[in-house]
């Protein structure tokens, strides 16, 4: 049996922000075509890790994207292979939804070239997948926070990258659209896309294939979401204030009162 291909790998990564160490020598790898969720208490370094994986922060140590060093990769090639959805990402209220999603195609476009038929198709697909198609002509300022979040998700999906990094993608989404997002991620991984997300809702994070559990800038556990060891690690980093149980074939996190 061959080992699964690694989409992203970090070796001894250290990050300091404002002179303070936030990540302390992490070694991690993320299998291609799987969904990994990163969980941990506030200040654990989840978003910093995600930004490091996206190559958005100056870091010590090495990050590899499909075995290529991220720091030395061509900027455009990296942008084509790695899509990023930031926490509370937004755009100008004046931009049309369609134009915002088209920005996701920038890594595939020449500087002054008009969008190609492929760009149009990718934008249309992303808008339909996030049920944002009906507002494509509206300006962003006329949408609610949840609707904007779906547009931003469409923008990240329009990149059609092999790896998608999402920081709190469920923010402002109502339960039906959270379920839609889960289905969308499942659809992406079935097409061999690697998804790595930071989620503070542990119940949602447990739907992933794998989980990275963090605390105080260190990885305390990495394993399958279905593993008992993963559940124990999650309960431990949240000071045993939650308990993970099985309910109707799914894992749920219940607060301990």
């Amino acid at each position, binding site marked *: 049996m061959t080992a699964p291909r690694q989409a992203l790998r970090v070796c001894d990564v250290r990050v300091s922000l404002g002179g303070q160490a936030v990540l302390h020598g992490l070694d991690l790898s993320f299998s291609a075509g799987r969904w990994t969720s990163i969980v941990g208490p506030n200040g654990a370094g989840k978003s910093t890790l995600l930004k490091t994986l996206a190559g958005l922060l100056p870091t010590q140590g090495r990050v590899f994207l499909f075995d290529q060093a991220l720091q030395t990769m061509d900027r455009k090639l990296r942008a084509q292979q790695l899509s990023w959805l930031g926490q509370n990402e937004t755009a100008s209220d004046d931009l049309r939804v369609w*134009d915002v999603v088209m920005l996701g195609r920038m890594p595939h476009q020449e500087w002054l070239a008009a969008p190609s038929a492929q760009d149009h198709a990718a934008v249309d697909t992303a808008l339909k997948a996030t049920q944002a198609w009906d507002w494509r002509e509206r300006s962003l300022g006329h949408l609610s926070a949840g609707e904007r979040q779906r547009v931003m998700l469409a923008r990240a999906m329009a990149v059609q990258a092999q790896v998608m990094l999402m920081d709190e993608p469920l923010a402002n989404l109502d339960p039906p659209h959270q379920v839609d997002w889960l289905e969308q991620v499942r659809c992406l991984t079935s097409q061999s896309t690697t998804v790595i997300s930071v989620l503070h809702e542990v119940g949602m994070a447990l739907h992933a294939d794998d989980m990275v559990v963090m605390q105080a800038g260190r990885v305390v556990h990495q394993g399958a979401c279905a593993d008992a060891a993963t559940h124990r690690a999650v309960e431990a980093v949240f000071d045993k204030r939650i308990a993970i149980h099985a309910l109707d074939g799914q894992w749920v996190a219940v607060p301990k009162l």
Partner: protein
Amino acid sequence: MTHTSVRWSPLGLALTLLVLCALGIALGSAVGSTGVESWLNAWQDNVAWQIVWDIRLPRTLGACAAGALLGLSGALAQGLFRNPLADPYLLGSASGASLGVAVALALLGGSPLASELLVRLGLTGAAFVGAVLAVMLTLLLSRGVQHTLRLLLAGVIVGVVLGALASLITLMRPDVLQGMQGFLLGSTSFIAWTSCVLMFGVLAVCVVLALALSRVLDALTLGESTALSLGLPLAPVRVALVCVLALATGTAVAQTGLIAFVGLAAPHLVRSMVKAKHNWVLLLSALMGGALLLAADLLARLVIAPQEMPVGVLTAVLGGGYLLWLMSRSQHMRVAR
């Protein structure tokens, strides 16, 4: 949610503004201390022709070009710094340009040879260098453009300090005081054909460069991290945008002095009428700035006719009033929601 504001199509607004500008230029060539007679007799009377061709037309076209440069640079500043309150002057470029002009006047203003040099080069070079250095100093002090508050504070500090230095020069060299006063009040009265050609030339270059960089401004609205993740070379593009901003502001300020609020109000007016990408916002802000300064220039000639009011004073009063109205309107809209 209901939307009561009238929405224009970008092309419709552009054509309307072009027509308004053409109308303003026609009116501008007809209005002045000698009245409309000069315009009517221009073909028969040499003096009348000189008044229309050598005085009124260049100043009117110059006002349009300067307004367009300020409108464009205002839209660039607001897009680049992702702050609707940013205008070119807020980042110290106007004070830098003032200081550049003051230094140039003080150093070269004395000798007849130097004066000739000044006439040939114009004050554009000095104002341009001053504006660029001031914006760079602001960026340096604010350690980048990520922190809006730090950026605005740095801009205020640079503006105050460079303004004080310009004042110090005028105090030490009273002979440059008159030139500086005209500069600080902002005036379109002395725009000649050479200035006009220069401003339109710079405007053409700046519009082309701004349009080429407009997609980056769109991407920057997504936030710095996302713009970087899209593979954009942010650092060199920022430098290019700051250069265009400084060139446009420096050129306008050098030819017309400090004209307030046009750079701030033009993009605001455009955005209240049109929802569009930055390519349209930049182009329309330039046209809106041109139309605004043309209108202000006409008013400045009419308000206390036959005397003339410095156009900078008028734009400051009208622009301040517009901002107050904007603030009260947004408060009303918040209450209504």
